């Protein structure tokens, strides 16, 4: 499944990083602890989080993640948007809680 298909299915907001929308999703990871993501997330996953600062994009890039999904309608600051565009990693917004969006994405990826 491509990031763009996930965006469409769940009505996610695309804040930035549109050039990465064509990438394939291999799975997902849910965490707000950055070291947990550094240690345990895997290449190709979408990262669901409530952290909005720009270090999130640095980690997404280092870990070769394909998208970051911000929960609860959280909006990213300008610095995070810029970083997302530089790395071509989509920064998405969801009008759902972490529990809800994780469940929905899991279901879509594991039909």
């Amino acid at each position, binding site marked *: 499944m491509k990031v763009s298909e996930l965006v469409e299915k769940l009505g996610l907001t695309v804040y930035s990083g549109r050039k990465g929308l064509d990438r394939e999703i291999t799975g997902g990871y849910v965490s*707000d*602890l950055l070291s947990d993501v*550094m*240690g345990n997330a895997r290449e190709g996953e979408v990262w669901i989080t409530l952290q909005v600062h720009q*270090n999130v994009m*640095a*980690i997404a890039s280092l870990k070769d993640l394909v998208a970051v999904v911000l929960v609860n309608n959280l909006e990213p600051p300008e*610095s995070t948007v810029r970083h997302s565009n530089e790395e071509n990693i989509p920064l998405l917004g969801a009008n759902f809680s972490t529990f809800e969006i994780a469940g929905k994405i899991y279901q879509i990826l594991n039909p």
Partner: protein
Amino acid sequence: MKLTYNIQGGDFTHAGHPSSEVKKVLKQLGIEGKTIKNIVIALYEAEVNVVAHAWKGVVDVEIDENKITVLVNDEGPGIPDIDLAMQAGYSTASDKVREMGFGAGMGLPNIKKNTDELLIETEIGKGTKVKMVNYFS
């Protein structure tokens, strides 16, 4: 090949820059993906430790035919009890740092897990030297 980067304590905006650069170089050199992933995790954590705890630091990277050696030397408060700091979940990070999602006490355990050799020397009130070695397969 030798690479050097400076880190400023408290400067979270540039955290991850050395890791990102080293990752690019290793990719260009055709180093195996798993090894790159390990080094990137360890170096990023070491960088964040300097940013979160120390005043400033220097990253020195040396890439040989069969291994990469990364030295992260900082001027900072030092680590009073290394055994305690190595314990998963133990952290002395400030509330501000924790709110950002850092300071979960996973940094040093992550470094240990992702390096072939790890040596930490520390002096209270002076600073900490972290040496990490990873061998290419």
